[in-house]
């Protein structure tokens, strides 16, 4: 086996800033005041807030040391299934940091914001083209917020038709947030099972679809990483009873430039710009969940919407409009997370249509390569061509009492971020790998070798795996005691 990236290096200990604080130590020398001292009214005075007192070097070392404990896609492969942790080209950050964008303010008024408005307008057009829909809103803050926006529009559509419906169909291979979004709109979830091949059977949908059902929420490709091949027939069944089809486009990274969801019969679809369109994510930073809709749903889009008039060249060409009486209303302050939009726009323009298509092709190729390479090592419950991710489980390791959790923890020692585990729920003890298009064959081979080595350890030295990770700063955590007797104060 080739050398693995994981190793034991110098791992720093680092106390909290409070513990490093010393009375009187200071990181800045403020210039002398060049204005007269003004007295503050006594009732506004109080004790200064307690802040740690530190030198500049204390602060720099603190954060630099903490950063050494971090693992991100910039340090190694991060095959977290369902999350699309691909590499985000640095040019997108450069564009977002340009002074004109970074210094823009949403209250500056349209005559000072034409560039920002044009970017958002053009991004909506580009996403409309990629997804195959005539209109897009960029407002939702992230994926689940996009789902909520989509479901609110479906709700508004039925209300406008004069008869509200009470149920939504949700398959077991949909994203877990789908039922929550439907419930927030007052719909009851009707859960249905996928068929033997891991995809939905039209007959299953037909059996529950009725005129009291508002529609269906389908994740395609689904959470097993499989393409819902019967999607058109399913859309026809739902439409025939007056329902609408919500498409969860979180897995769009598998089909960009290849399939337009709008062509499949889907009526409303959200995207995750922070996954598919290249914004660093996973640390809780801002996301963006634009929603595309068919013509019939345009009146219900959230306000404000962006419009372009005349030739697009004067200072009032792009503007926000709010005069949309059937709109579901405002979903976010101003117009969503602008920084993420800049990165997505930069990514789309720098990749081009052909580049986006190739990205999806490589994402699918990489996942299939891993699936084929590891299917004798780990159990593969659905042995079919996959899309951008593949789902194994620990069935072969059970005889040695080794679980998916043990193998995932051990991968840390080999220098990889573990895959998603125990999701999707349709596979018992799932081990869900999404390599993305940005990993090279060499890096993927290293990952495959690591998993094979771990499977061997599961047979020869299972006790070691039960204690893994062994090389990390913090080894196996006692999750049970942490959950039973949580210590919530320092």
């Amino acid at each position, binding site marked *: 086996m080739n050398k693995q990236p994981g190793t034991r290096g110098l791992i720093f200990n680092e106390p909290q800033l409070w513990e490093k604080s010393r009375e009187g130590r200071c990181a800045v020398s403020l210039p002398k005041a060049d204005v007269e001292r003004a007295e503050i009214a006594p009732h506004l005075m109080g004790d200064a807030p307690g802040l740690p007192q530190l030198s500049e070097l204390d602060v720099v070392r603190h954060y630099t040391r903490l950063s050494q404990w971090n693992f991100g896609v910039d340090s190694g492969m991060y095959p977290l299934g369902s999350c699309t942790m691909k590499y985000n080209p640095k040019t997108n950050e450069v564009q977002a940091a340009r002074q004109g964008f970074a210094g823009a303010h949403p209250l500056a008024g349209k005559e000072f914001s034409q560039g920002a408005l044009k970017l958002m307008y053009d991004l909506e057009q580009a996403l409309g083209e990629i997804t195959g829909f005539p209109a897009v809103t960029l407002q939702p803050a992230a994926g689940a917020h996009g789902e909520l926006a989509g479901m609110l529009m479906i709700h508004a559509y039925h209300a406008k038709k004069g008869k509200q419906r009470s149920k939504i169909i949700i398959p077991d291979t949909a994203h877990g947030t789908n039922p929550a979004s439907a419930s927030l709109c007052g719909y009851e979830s009707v859960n249905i099972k996928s068929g033997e091949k891991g995809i939905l059977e039209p007959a299953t949908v037909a059996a529950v679809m009725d005129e009291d059902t508002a529609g269906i929420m389908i994740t395609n490709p689904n959470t097993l990483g499989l393409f819902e091949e019967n999607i058109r027939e399913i859309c026809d069944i739902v439409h025939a009873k007056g329902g609408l089809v919500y498409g969860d486009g979180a897995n769009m990274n598998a089909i960009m430039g290849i399939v337009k969801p709008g062509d499949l019969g889907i009526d409303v679809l959200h995207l995750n710009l922070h996954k598919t369109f290249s914004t660093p994510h996973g640390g809780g930073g801002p996301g963006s969940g634009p929603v595309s809709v068919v013509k019939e749903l345009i009146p219900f889009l959230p306000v404000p919407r962006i419009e372009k008039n005349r030739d697009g060249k004067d200072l009032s060409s792009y503007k926000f409009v709010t005069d949309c009486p059937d709109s579901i209303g405002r979903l976010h302050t101003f117009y969503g997370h602008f920084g993420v939009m800049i990165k997505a726009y930069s990514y789309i323009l720098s990749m081009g249509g052909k580049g986006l298509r190739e990205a999806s092709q490589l994402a699918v190729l990489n996942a299939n390569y891993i699936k084929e390479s590891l299917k004798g090592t780990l159990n593969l419950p659905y042995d079919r061509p996959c899309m951008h991710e593949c789902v194994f489980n620990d069935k072969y390791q*059970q005889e040695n009492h080794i679980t998916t959790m043990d193998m995932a923890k051990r991968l840390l020692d080999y220098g990889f971020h573990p895959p998603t585990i125990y999701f999707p729920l349709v596979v018992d003890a799932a081990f869900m790998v999404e390599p993305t298009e940005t990993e090279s064959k060499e890096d993927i081979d290293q990952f495959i070798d690591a998993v094979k080595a771990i499977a061997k350890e599961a047979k020869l030295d299972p006790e070691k795996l039960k204690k893994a990770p062994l090389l990390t700063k913090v080894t196996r955590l006692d999750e*049970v005691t942490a*959950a*039973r007797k949580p210590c919530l104060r320092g």
Partner: protein
Amino acid sequence: MKEISDLNFPEDVKYTKDHEWSKSCGDIVTIGLSDYAQDQLGEIVFVELPEVGDSFSQGDEFGSVESVKAVSEVYIPISGEIVGINEDLEDAPELVNEDCYEGGWIIKIKPEDPSQLDDLMDKAAYLNMLKG
């Protein structure tokens, strides 16, 4: 997880398809989770209990059990009013893992219609279901 043959299924309780057990004693029925359920859930870290006096109909969700793996709802095997809850589980949810038929019982109810117990499975039927 254990093999089904390594798990304990007493003869004197009745089982549901959702893996609760019920045991009748006088006019009170005690309810808990089967050995199979606790083994599947793994280490249990929290049990959410109903309140004494609450009433539930057969099949209603009356609480939940949280393990390191998942949160699972628990359903009442027969209709009735809660007359006792196992308060020991608040500080020691692991009792459900360690002693699921005795110290790890969850609720006691006064059944609305004791004949509903006849709908439940005996040990042989439950084992058949588990072996599929």
